[in-house]
């Protein structure tokens, strides 16, 4: 056998190259080439750099809250990180948020005086739920005033009538005053003038006082302040010097020719840290008659630029950023709100799909949370029928209203009143 193998492979020693020898040489060359190629491939350096990503989960630092009213309701996700909102656009809209101070003073601000300031108490004889209180101890010869107020936005539609109503009483009033006046009205912060006002005389029991405002005196879509307050000028002799003015409810009802809505639909509560938040419109299923403006505002009175929808088309897709700082929280108030102004002439729902984008640093930096929001706007004829609800967050005991450390002017007593300037 070995002799045959030797003869077969080594015939070249005895003559010309045979075909088997050539084939063997080619095969060996191929193997050598493959081996060389393998060496080259395996010789390429592969660098492995270790990396780890650790997720340490936390509860949301910014949570959504429901703002239920006769014209809006909200369903909030279990972690407060999503919401479905239904808004009923109606021909008759009540514009004041938390009109009855039921469980907190949320949405209401105070323009305090030297001795008089604004408070909230959870109950009072003859009142429904909590009441706002303007209270203070005055000195002989002192002149002072204080007001509660809330920004409202007129519907962006033809307005047929405007009626303001205040339910109030006095629990204590100074005696031997030069004059004292109780005021209710609608104030224009731009002109720093009352659009309309009236004085009234509360008694020891709650009464309702109404003021009819000429629709032609307001601009549709413009923001005003609903104001209720007291101004007093003490005499030089003091007997009883305590002013205790209690307000159970304040409403501003507007009738429009088309179905409208104007008000807060969601509360934003920053529980930890600072967030820079905006709204981003990502989807719209709107009827051609929908005109809407959606904004985000904070407790200091700052409001974003709006998402604007006109004729069912989005003209702007995002608001500007608004700072929501837990350090500036006030008990009984949300840190901020989502506001909707809408008008709609045709039947059928309009649905808006948005994100609340809330970042821990300005300009979309830091960690950014995206909370999905769905807002359905449904026009209804006549008065809206959603059930009324309390305005969270509720308070267990008395508290102060947010003071006027705002960029808004101090509200004077009306010109022409005994205490007016």
């Amino acid at each position, binding site marked *: 056998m070995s002799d045959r193998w030797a003869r077969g492979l080594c015939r070249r020693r005895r003559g010309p190259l045979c075909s088997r020898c050539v084939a063997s040489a080619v095969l060996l060359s191929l193997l050598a080439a493959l081996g060389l190629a393998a060496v080259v491939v395996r010789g390429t350096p592969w*660098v492995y750099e270790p*990396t780890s990503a*650790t997720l340490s989960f936390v*509860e949301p630092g910014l949570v959504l809250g429901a703002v239920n009213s006769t014209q809006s309701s909200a369903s909030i996700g279990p972690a407060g990180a999503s919401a479905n909102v239904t808004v009923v656009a109606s021909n008759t809209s009540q514009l004041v948020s938390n009109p009855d101070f039921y469980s907190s003073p949320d949405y209401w601000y105070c323009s305090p005086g030297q001795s008089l300031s604004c408070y909230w108490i959870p109950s009072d004889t003859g009142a429904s739920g909590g009441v706002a209180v303007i209270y203070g101890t005055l000195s002989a010869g002192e002149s002072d005033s204080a007001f509660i107020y809330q920004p409202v936005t007129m519907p962006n539609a033809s307005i047929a009538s405007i009626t303001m109503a205040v339910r109030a009483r006095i629990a204590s009033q100074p005696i031997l005053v030069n004059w004292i006046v109780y005021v209710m009205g609608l104030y224009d912060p731009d002109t720093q003038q009352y659009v309309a006002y009236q004085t009234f005389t509360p008694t020891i029991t709650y009464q309702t006082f109404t003021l009819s405002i000429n629709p032609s005196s307001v601009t549709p879509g413009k923001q005003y302040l609903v104001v209720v307050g007291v101004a007093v000028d003490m005499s030089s002799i003091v007997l009883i010097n305590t002013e205790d003015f209690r307000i159970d409810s304040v409403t501003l009802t507007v009738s429009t020719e088309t179905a409208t809505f104007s008000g807060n639909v969601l509360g934003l509560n920053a529980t930890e840290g600072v967030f820079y938040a905006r709204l981003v419109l990502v989807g719209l299923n709107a009827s051609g008659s929908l005109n809407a403006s959606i904004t985000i505002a904070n407790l200091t009175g700052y409001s974003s630029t709006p998402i604007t929808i006109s004729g069912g088309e989005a003209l702007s897709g995002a608001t500007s950023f608004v700072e929501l700082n837990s350090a500036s929280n006030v008990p009984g108030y949300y840190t901020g709100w989502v506001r909707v102004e809408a008008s709609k002439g045709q039947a059928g729902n309009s649905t808006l*799909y948005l994100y609340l984008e809330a970042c*821990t640093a300005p300009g979309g930096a830091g*960690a*950014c949370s995206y909370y999905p929001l769905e807002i359905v706007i449904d026009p209804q004829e006549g008065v809206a029928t959603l059930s009324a609800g309390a305005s969270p967050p509720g308070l267990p005991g008395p508290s102060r209203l947010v003071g006027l450390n705002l960029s808004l002017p101090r509200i004077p007593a009306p010109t022409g009143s005994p205490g007016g300037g």
Partner: protein
Amino acid sequence: MAANARQLAAVTIIAVASLALAIAYAHVMTYYPTSVTVSPTAPEVGFAPGSNAGGADIGVTNGNSNTITVTIGQNATSLELTVHPTYQTTYYQNITLIENNSTLKSYSVSIEVASPLSLPSGSKAYLIIYSKGATRSLSGWPIPTPTTGTYIAEVDLTSTGTTAIGTISSGGVWEVDLLIYIPEGVTLPSQQTAELYLIATPSS
């Protein structure tokens, strides 16, 4: 068996074994002189802090505000990220950079997820790699995701595997974002760590 026969068998076995040993040790051992020189070089592909490294994160731990923690090894060849996401979608933009510091070579880069995150059902966790300065764009509702075509690649941190990212040119820089989605209604998971490798090899 006769004694002679047993002796013959023993001799035969010894002879065969001896022959086998002889064959085994008959190899010729040739020693060629060879040298291997190891010349350590600085890594050319590595990590650097992104613009959001050290930035404010969500929540408070032990009384201190959380931060986006990015720890890079001394030679920029290892990386540890720690973030504090919450429910719904939490997005961290530009938390770290992948840099090719070579002035000559391009590198092919992959990311291997060796140990994935274990998150509640329906959750998502992605690293998203962008070119330097790329405009971010999220789309979709109610879960936003990076718009296709705006990024280079995304790496799913919830499953093992290797994702080819692409070729980073000499001097090139990529920005790395992180997207986490946790559905509402689930219990927040305990701390989770994904272990990865950035794999780089010269491509030119």
